[in-house]
């Protein structure tokens, strides 16, 4: 059993970055995730593992530091919250085009604009539909506990390097700020220079005599080659859709009505399931862990099983619900319920919405 600690979600993420053998964190403070860089600065990971921690002049600079270091084969991570994530989008697009591995977290707050510092899930579209320019995808992991804030850093790096892709840990102000018990995984070693030369033949590490030089770029002025590169990216995304879907079904075996939720909304919906079951309603929850790839097939299987309706519960005006509708393609009723702008829905509200919009509606 790993070391047990009581930690904030943001701190667990920061500690996990050190333990996952990250080479560097580059970031810029913003509520509700400033604890990530604060924790790292006070932990002195450069003494523990040699990991670099640097406060950049902006989120734009931070993501470009990530781009540079990732292109040179390093294991790098950044984090921010909604307005800062908007600033990072140019960099994410370049990272996606150049196929660089990295992990970054968005501890989402309410928007649009400066919005509020309270929790929200209104950055779903930005996360899964491509917040920057061009046809690209990133793997999106949605933690619903402090434990997962830690675990998904490790998983995120595994996936990022397996597919040379950006992995987004899409958290929210609740998960980032709350304290829970977390079992920390053991310290993993950072890769040595030699391991980097050997493992990443694409990384810019200095051209050795008699070897091909390495170039990190997302540019090709020949549109035929650029189309081929795009096909290559799309094939990669398809492989990810086939192999990396993760979700958790709770009380779904005999369910007639299913809540679809991720992150803190999934915790609230789980409470609503218990309340519904106590009332004799056959309710279940599918908690989405990967938002891209989206658990389409899992939702379709519920249709075959005879589920009568789905309620998408999210702290937004209705974003993920669109993907639920696309997945089940009219086989059952799909509705959305959610508070937004920084307000968190209660289990009672969520259950009432299921009763009124799906069961009774």
């Amino acid at each position: 059993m790993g070391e047990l600690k009581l930690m904030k979600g943001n701190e667990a993420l920061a500690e996990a970055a050190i333990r996952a053998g990250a080479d560097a964190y580059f970031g810029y403070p913003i509520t509700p995730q400033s604890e990530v860089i604060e924790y790292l600065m006070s932990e002195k990971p450069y003494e523990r593992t040699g990991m670099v921690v640097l406060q950049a002049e902006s989120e734009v600079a931070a993501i470009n530091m990530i781009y540079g270091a990732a292109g040179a084969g390093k294991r790098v991570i950044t984090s921010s919250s909604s307005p800062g994530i908007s600033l990072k989008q140019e960099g994410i697009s370049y990272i996606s085009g150049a196929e660089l591995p990295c992990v970054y977290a968005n501890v989402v707050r309410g928007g649009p604009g400066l919005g509020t510092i309270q929790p929200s899930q209104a950055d779903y579209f930005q996360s899964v539909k491509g917040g920057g320019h061009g046809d690209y995808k990133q793997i999106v992991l949605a933690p619903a506990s402090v434990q997962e804030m830690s675990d998904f850093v490790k998983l995120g790096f595994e996936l990022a390097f397996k597919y040379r892709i950006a992995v987004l840990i899409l958290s929210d102000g609740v998960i980032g700020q709350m304290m829970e018990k977390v079992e920390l995984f053991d310290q993993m070693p950072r890769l040595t220079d030699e391991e980097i030369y050997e493992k990443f033949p694409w990384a810019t590490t200095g051209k050795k005599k008699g070897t091909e030089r390495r170039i990190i770029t997302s540019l090709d002025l020949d549109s035929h080659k650029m189309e081929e590169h795009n096909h290559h990216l799309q094939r990669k995304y398809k492989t990810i859709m086939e192999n990396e879907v993760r979700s958790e079904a709770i009380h779904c075996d005999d369910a007639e009505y299913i809540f679809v939720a991720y992150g803190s909304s999934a915790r609230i919906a789980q409470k609503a399931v218990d309340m519904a079951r106590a009332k004799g309603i056959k309710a279940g929850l599918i908690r989405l862990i990967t938002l891209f790839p989206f658990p389409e097939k899992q939702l379709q299987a519920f249709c075959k099983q005879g589920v009568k309706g789905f309620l998408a519960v999210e702290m937004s005006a209705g974003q993920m619900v669109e993907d639920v509708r696309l997945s089940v393609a009219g086989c059952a009723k799909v509705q959305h319920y959610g508070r937004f702008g920084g307000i968190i829905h209660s289990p009672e509200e969520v259950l009432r919405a299921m009763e009124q919009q799906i069961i009774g509606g």
Partner: protein
Amino acid sequence: MITFEDIVKPENLVYEKTSLMTDKALSYCPGCGHGTAHRIIMEVIEELGLEENTIGVAPVGCSVLAYEFMNIDMTQAAHGRAPAVATGIKRTWPDKIVFTYQGDGDLAAIGTAETIHACNRGEKFVIIFVNNGIYGMTGGQMAPTTLPGMKSSTSPYGRDIETMGNPLKITELVAQLPGTYFVTRQAVHTPAAVRKAKKAIKKAFENQRDDKHGLSFVEIVSNCNSGWKMTPTDSNKWMEENMFPYYPMGDIKVDGKLVK
């Protein structure tokens, strides 16, 4: 009669193309200073024996394709972001030699924040800053360095300093920051200028190799004959007469001390 074979012999060799330039034909307009600047940087890296350890960063501008010509490991960066990209590389690979190659729009407009903060943190890499007073790549729009009264496609009646501001002397500005160790302004339009510029670039890379405290910043005032709508010869003359008075040649800071 002396034949070709008589001349082409190793003992007659006076100049050789550096192996750190590829054989790909340069995409720059004939007469443009970018090609010369590329060549002397690569010669310096070769002469110092640093090629196996060097990573270059070229952001958007006419030189975005520098990686096609510079025969070393290169990272292409977004417009203005090269100093941040280089920071990411240098901080995680402190033993590598890292440099950026940036235009004036890139370094002094969209990337001002990244430039100033990399200089201020004293990042231990080299910035090569090619100032041609215009946006070459996008077709000759006004740059932060465009001279007062100078015409460009977005200042067709000449740069009006009342509404468009004065040209930004960013090199003098970064020289004020304790984080810069060596700041100099050079040109590459004559053989004498090329020799001086190469010496300055060499010093910049030596500073980094020797792990000196701070960033080495080399501005190269250059022409953009296409953007300025002049012949290459006229553009060099115009540059001497108009750019040099505003952007005077020479060292501004040496070994961490202001000399101007």
